[in-house]
């Protein structure tokens, strides 16, 4: 009884767990229940029950509601599909002038908007692409195909790779200095020599359209939300869901709305990349000290000047993190959107992975990662650049970069021209090294993989079998054994204990949505994989973070490593694990662990770092040793921040689990992947995405509420 009074929370949690397990044991698995089978797969079967909602027929296998809730939301995907179809094909027909046929045509409004948006995006991408690679679409866009037939010499020739490489190096030099210039030059040369020039430039042209557009939209909406509470309130739920929504899931609706190709990829990338940009813009603007704003006003700033000369530069740190995020998402999407027909490195990467050609995949993945890091560093350097007003420079000094570029331009063209003589009859290597005609290390890597497989096959297989049979399968079975009602009770109880009624209601609504969707079993499998990944990631991340924190240099080094790893597109993580473990759940889980360890490590170091120096000194003066200081002072104080790391770890893990469907897992991701090739997939894809997002949001809500309370309790913020 004394313990009960001393630790009331502990007993409440114990009670909750007891209830949960009691329910688990009390509710039996129905004999006819088949695990994992979708409960509403739209196949007719006399054993199914049927209900109608909004004119939609939903068929499902009915079981005890305590065991599995009926899929009352089964109509949602169908309904989304129908609505999308209606909007695209029937809603608001209007007369539009058609250039080609020279007459008015009736078209639904949304279709017309989508077409115009699409052609605009295509134009932008083609413009950049043809500057880099050559082509005639841009000229055609201004004139016509007949025109280009009449004047074939008008075709854009494309820049020789030497010029692009020199340009990239010079720009990097201007922005940052020798180091970055060297990196830029080497990256470009590497890309070219290894025959990845064309796909790389295709990807680059995609990014150069998607990233700036995402930045502008994100910044604009962020400013709007900062200025108006109403806009913020309207945006907030969307932002929240989009943050935990797997990128896969948005592909399918985009397919329906914008068709297949680079333009759809750009639009969908914006949908994914804009939310974090908005959030960080708001965060940055909110953190500006009021006196700085007043100083701006007293300097006589107009509203416009105040925003762009005072507020945004002052909020630069957070906005830069936003830019970093945008670039990350863009590269990640550059790969994923290959599923909807975007050209470039992503397509090659997916193709190579599909053919199990690890060597090729590795080359493409390396290229995309290098470009990602380069652009990331360049954007950072650009934002930190400063002007020197007092340098007394000569004309040459002031314009040396332009002069050098002009010079390298001329030299590049001469080289390319000379190249036509040297490489007569074959490819002009000084102009562009064609795909797969460069040096390739693919064979080397493939042999390496084979060697690893031959040499370590026994061990890898043994490990694999052990993991799957003794750890993963039982864990999966346990998760699947959870009755819907018991899970609901657990979630709601946790919500109540952590955040009171409000939290309990939010969590209940999110859980119910998943439970009432036709994919409860799949969600449980997703959850089990994510849990496994998160537990291991946190163990590794917290340990590595704590160890690295002991020394300033190693902490900085580790944060740098995290930065670089975070820049890699998520798909790249699949390459090395497939190299080692082939196509198994183990591969996916290891990719999940590697990917999700990044935030766990980062937040641990940052959390430990944020412990005030004064406390360290106070602790030292109290005579604690290193270990005591860690356990008594640093961990308790850093713990809330580490929990935020856990939150990120969960989101990262969920993303990777869903992407892992590409290798073949039996979770929600598999259905999302399926939906991509289904003509009625939009509704299913979106609903599945929301399910995954909600799993993330349940944890997000619980963790954030807890952290908020804990921080208040500790008086840190």
């Amino acid at each position, binding site marked *: 009884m004394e313990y009960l009074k001393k630790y009331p929370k502990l007993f409440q949690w114990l009670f909750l767990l007891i209830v949960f397990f009691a329910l688990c044991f009390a509710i039996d698995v129905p004999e006819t229940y088949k695990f994992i089978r979708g409960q509403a797969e739209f196949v007719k079967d006399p054993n199914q029950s049927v209900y109608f909602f909004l004119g939609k027929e939903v068929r499902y296998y009915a079981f005890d509601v305590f065991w599995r809730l009926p899929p009352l939301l089964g109509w949602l995907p169908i309904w989304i599909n129908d609505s999308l179809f209606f909007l695209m094909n029937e809603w608001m027909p209007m007369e539009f002038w058609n250039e080609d046929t020279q007459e008015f045509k009736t078209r639904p409004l949304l279709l017309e908007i989508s077409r115009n948006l699409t052609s605009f995006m295509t134009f932008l991408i083609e413009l950049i692409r043809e500057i880099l690679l050559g082509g005639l679409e841009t000229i055609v866009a201004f004139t016509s195909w007949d025109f280009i037939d009449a004047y074939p010499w008008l075709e854009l020739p494309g820049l020789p790779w030497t010029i692009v490489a020199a340009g990239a190096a010079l720009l990097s030099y201007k922005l940052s200095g020798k180091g970055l210039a060297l990196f830029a030059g080497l990256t470009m040369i590497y890309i070219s020599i290894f025959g990845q020039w064309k796909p790389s430039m295709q990807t680059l042209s995609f990014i150069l359209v998607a990233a700036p557009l995402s930045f502008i939209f994100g910044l604009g909406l962020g400013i709007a939300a900062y200025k108006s509470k109403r806009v913020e309130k309207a945006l907030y739920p969307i932002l929240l869901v989009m943050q935990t929504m797997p990128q896969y899931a948005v592909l399918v609706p985009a397919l329906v709305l914008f068709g297949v190709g680079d333009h759809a990829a750009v639009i969908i990338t914006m949908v994914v990349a804009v939310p974090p940009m908005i959030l960080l813009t708001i965060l940055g603007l909110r953190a500006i000290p009021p006196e700085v704003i007043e100083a701006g006003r007293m300097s006589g700033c107009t509203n416009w000047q105040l925003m762009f000369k005072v507020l945004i530069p002052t909020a630069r740190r957070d906005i830069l993190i936003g830019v970093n995020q945008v670039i990350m998402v863009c590269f990640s999407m550059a790969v994923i959107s290959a599923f909807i027909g975007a050209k470039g490195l992503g397509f090659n990467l997916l193709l190579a992975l599909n053919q199990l050609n690890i060597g090729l995949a590795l080359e493409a993945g390396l290229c995309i990662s290098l470009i990602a890091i380069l652009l990331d560093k360049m954007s950072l350097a650009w934002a930190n650049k*400063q002007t020197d*007003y007092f340098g007394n420079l000569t004309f040459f000094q002031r314009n040396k970069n332009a002069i050098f570029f002009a010079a390298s331009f001329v030299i590049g063209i001469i080289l390319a021209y000379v190249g036509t003589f040297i490489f007569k009859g074959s490819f002009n290597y000084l102009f562009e090294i064609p795909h797969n005609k460069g040096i390739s290390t693919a064979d080397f890597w493939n042999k390496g993989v084979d060697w690893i497989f031959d040499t370590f096959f026994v061990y890898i297989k043994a490990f694999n079998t052990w993991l799957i049979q003794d750890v993963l399968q039982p864990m999966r079975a346990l998760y699947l054994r959870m009755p819907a009602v018991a899970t609901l009770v657990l979630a709601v109880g946790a919500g109540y204990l952590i955040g009171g009624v409000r939290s309990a209601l939010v969590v209940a609504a999110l859980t119910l949505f998943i439970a009432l969707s036709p994919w409860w079993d799949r969600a449980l499998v997703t959850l089990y994989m994510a849990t496994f990944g998160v537990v291991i990631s946190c163990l590794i991340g917290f340990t590595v973070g704590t160890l690295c924190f002991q020394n300033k240099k190693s902490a900085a080094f580790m944060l740098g490593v995290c930065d670089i790893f975070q820049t890699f597109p998520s798909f790249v993580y699949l390459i090395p694990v497939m190299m080692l473990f082939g196509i198994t759940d183990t591969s996916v889980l290891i990719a999940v662990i590697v990917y999700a360890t990044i935030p766990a490590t980062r937040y641990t170091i940052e959390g430990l770092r944020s412990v005030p120096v004064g406390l360290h000194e106070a602790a030292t003066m109290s005579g604690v040793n290193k270990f005591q200081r860690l356990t008594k002072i640093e961990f308790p104080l850093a713990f809330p921040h580490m929990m935020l790391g856990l939150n990120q770890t969960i989101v990262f893990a969920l993303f990777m689990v869903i992407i892992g469907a590409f290798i073949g897992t039996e979770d929600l991701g598999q259905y999302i992947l399926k939906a991509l090739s289904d003509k009625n997939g939009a509704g299913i894809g979106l609903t599945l995405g929301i399910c995954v997002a909600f799993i993330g949001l349940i944890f997000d809500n619980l963790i954030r509420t807890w952290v908020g309370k804990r921080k208040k309790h500790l008086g840190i913020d």
Partner: protein
Amino acid sequence: MSETVIKCESVYKIFGENAKKMLEESNGNVDAKTFQERGCIVGVNNASFEVAKGEMLVVMGLSGSGKSTLLRCISRLTDATGGKIFIEGQDLLELNNKELIELRRNKMGMVFQSFALLPHKTVVENIAFPLQIKGTNTEESISRAMEMVKLVGLDGRENYFPRELSGGQQQRVGIARSLAVEPDIWFLDEPFSALDPLIRKEMQDEFLRLQEKLQKTIMFITHDFDEALKLADRIAIMKDGIIEQLDTPANIVLNPATEYVRKFTEEVPREKVLIIEDVMDASSKDNLGDLKVSKDEIIENVAEKILTQEKLVGVVDSNNNIVGSIKPSKIIDTVFGGRKIGS
């Protein structure tokens, strides 16, 4: 007095949703307590005063007394809830946004407690900022900013970023920035409060030197009574949004209007604040001894001389005409009389 630059007539600032309506209902009789019960907080309560050209008015009050709010009403960083504010005869509250911006660009400068420098700009860029906002070209604004850098003694640090400077240096930048457009009116919101005592004294002296040279019309906010005494032509003491007393430093020390003001003056060393004129007897000019002192001398400087005299000491003005006299015992009274000794 010369011409009036800032003029406030019954200025109110009340925070809260129905502030305007409640103020109208109260007929100018604002009671902080009843307002608070209805969800409104009174920032400034019926402030009326004038500031003449070249005068330095120091507004003194503890935190929460409404002094910063009053300053923000006059610079219109917040809109006053009621009353009228005139800047050089122009009704401030009637100005539209464009006119207000013009006013700030040409007439006003402000220094902030937390310096409020733009973190992404160097010293010289920060100082040139108001000029560039006005549309001055880069070359001219930078050369003007360099003059200001010299004025505040930061030569050689013009390319530093604010984060690379000490607090005192940062505030010098803030002062230089506020002076860059050559404003007539200078607002200083607790400019030295965030500085160490030694640096603070140094900055106060520097500030007096600048003001000697520039002769701006100044509103200076502080919570430090000693600072107010040292700098002010006149002091306004605020409490709970109300101006308790507005007078010259000497009059405040000699005749505190309320109990609240008296508490501040208790610990003040009078001999450092008062001048002979404040304590002399203007009626008796006869029977004087040999010693003559100027009426503008601070008591501390001449006390020793006066105390060695047995006869009355004559007080003279700048033309050496006798304007009054002072008894040696009066000095002792002044220095020790008003203070509670040993309590």
